[in-house]
């Protein structure tokens, strides 16, 4: 019984192997022929572009820039127009838990040790705006005895040593030559490893598309000579953006003329968002 049963199986296996070998040989022959024949194939496309061609677009050469971002927290008025503009510009889901940029409010109340921290996604603030799709800080401390209070805009730090990139199993996130950490959404498998790895909480999983998402410094704008949307709309100049290779750019001047800090320098990530006017609770 056993023998009778195994006979067809064995034959099937032999047949399969024979076909596989045949297919492999054919494929190999095809590739070999193509390569020998000089027909442009897959490998030909990976060669460097001809001299003079710039990457990633024909008007923009990423080797000529090194972007940087500055935040002057002493200027921020907490109007959240940056959050609004970012959601619009980058088609970020309109809900209260997914943001590419956000603003935090730090409030020290007289006689209290703990600092009160809230952002636009706090239920009280959602209540004040009337909807999860609109953003507004509630005037919740108007009757409290406040020692000190300030707003701090936050976003992806586009670290020089990004650990989100290090942990990505598919090479879907990477740091460009001009210093921007991007996500290749066609390669992202939505494993959320990077979301966990980021010490700044700058990434989120876009459940609708099943991919990780975060600030790109509006890469599609800066490569066209525009400012990131949040910088464009900030009415008080609390956000500064520019090319660190240009010594007269807004960011170079910002770094040179101020004593700047980065968030969580101890992580060794070497962030590229520089802050002015923040307390130890923020760092």
């Amino acid at each position, binding site marked *: 019984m056993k023998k009778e049963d195994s006979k067809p199986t064995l034959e099937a296996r032999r047949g399969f*192997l024979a076909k*596989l*070998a045949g297919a*492999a040989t054919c*494929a*190999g022959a095809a*590739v070999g022929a193509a390569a020998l024949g000089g027909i442009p194939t*897959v*490998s030909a*496309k*990976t060669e460097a572009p001809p001299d003079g061609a710039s*990457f*990633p*677009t024909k008007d*923009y050469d*990423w080797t000529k820039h090194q972007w940087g971002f500055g935040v002057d927290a*002493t*200027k*921020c*008025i*907490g*109007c959240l*127009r940056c959050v609004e*503009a970012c959601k*619009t*510009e980058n088609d970020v889901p309109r809900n209260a838990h997914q943001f590419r940029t956000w603003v935090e*409010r730090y*409030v020290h109340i007289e006689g209290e040790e703990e600092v009160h921290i809230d952002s636009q996604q706090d239920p009280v603030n959602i209540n004040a705006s009337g909807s999860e799709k609109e953003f507004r*800080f509630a*005037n919740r*401390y*108007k009757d*409290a005895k*406040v020692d000190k*209070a*300030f*707003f701090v805009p936050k976003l992806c730090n586009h670290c020089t040593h990004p650990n989100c990139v290090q942990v990505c199993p598919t*090479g879907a*996130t*990477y740091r*460009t*030559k001009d210093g921007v950490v*991007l996500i*290749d*959404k*066609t*390669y992202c498998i939505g494993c959320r490893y990077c979301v966990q790895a980021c010490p700044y909480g700058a990434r989120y999983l876009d459940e609708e598309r099943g991919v990780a998402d975060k600030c*790109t410094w*509006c*890469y*599609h*704008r800066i490569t*066209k000579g*525009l400012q990131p*949307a949040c910088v*464009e*709309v900030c*009415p*008080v*100049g609390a956000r500064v953006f520019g090319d660190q290779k240009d010594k007269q750019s807004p960011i170079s001047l910002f770094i040179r003329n101020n004593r700047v800090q980065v968030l969580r320098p101890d992580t060794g990530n070497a962030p590229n968002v520089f802050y002015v006017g923040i307390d130890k609770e923020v760092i």
Partner: protein
Amino acid sequence: MPKHIIRLLALILGVVVVAIIAPQFLTVDSFYRFGHYRANSVPEIAALEPVLQTPAYCKDCHTERHAQWSAGSHKSVICEVCHGAALGHPQNGKLPIPKDTAKLCTLCHEAMTGRPRTQPQIQVAQHSGGQQCTVCHNPHSPKIAAAVAKVAGNAAAGKQKSADCAACHGEAGISPNDTWPNLAGQNAAYLARILAAYKSGDQKDVAMTPLAQALGNADIQNLATYYAGLSCKGAAGEKAAGNLAAGKVLAKNCAACHGETGIASNPAWPKLAAQKQGYLANALKAFKAGLRKDPMMAGVSRGLSDTDIADLAAFYAAQSCQSTK
């Protein structure tokens, strides 16, 4: 060599061949061009279309608005902050004009802990009585720059000239008639501005127009100085018919410019406290009907009913004209 070993070697060879060839087909072409990622994703991301277009995009068609905006104090607030992203405009229709400005403007201007002091902020409850901001402010250039006319006249000369006015406005600027305004103690800058308006024809009145046309510029300065220097005591605290309490509530809408009890904070705007009730009511009706022209007053008076006007007039008429300071 035994047959099964040959088969095994053949199998291993096959696997090796597949392992070498398969990546040629399975790896995306641009992977590893610059690093452990797909290089082509960079131009893909860079090719996305910007949604916010910046004011330069709006300038060509909305030239006038753009000029006004870029000269005003809101020039750091770009068009799309209030009107929404301009991608697809004008092809896909108009951009919204914000309706609820009381909500929109307070995003930045509500007095709030944590906001830097340099930011202009208002106590919402005390500022406008819930009116829309656009009633008084032009959102494209919101600063209310009431031109304060410089008044440097001679009070003595003004007194001489005032003989012409005394018949209606009283000898000491306290009008004997309810329909004519008191002038004593009024802001000089306002008096000078309004006289000049009668003279130029910007404002018309059967009695005032010919009289003002006869005045020289120096006369206007002198008169304004004279009347502003008079005591308004005789006008104080008139008992008035009308609902004072209702008037007080309505007056909150006027407080930003005319002061809480009708003592204006800016000399370009008139004092209303202890003014004649009939005159106040007529003036408001004239603004409402467009007979007196002032963009701000037109906006404010538009929503007032005749009862509201009577109540407001009664409230201001009953206030003390002397500043409590």
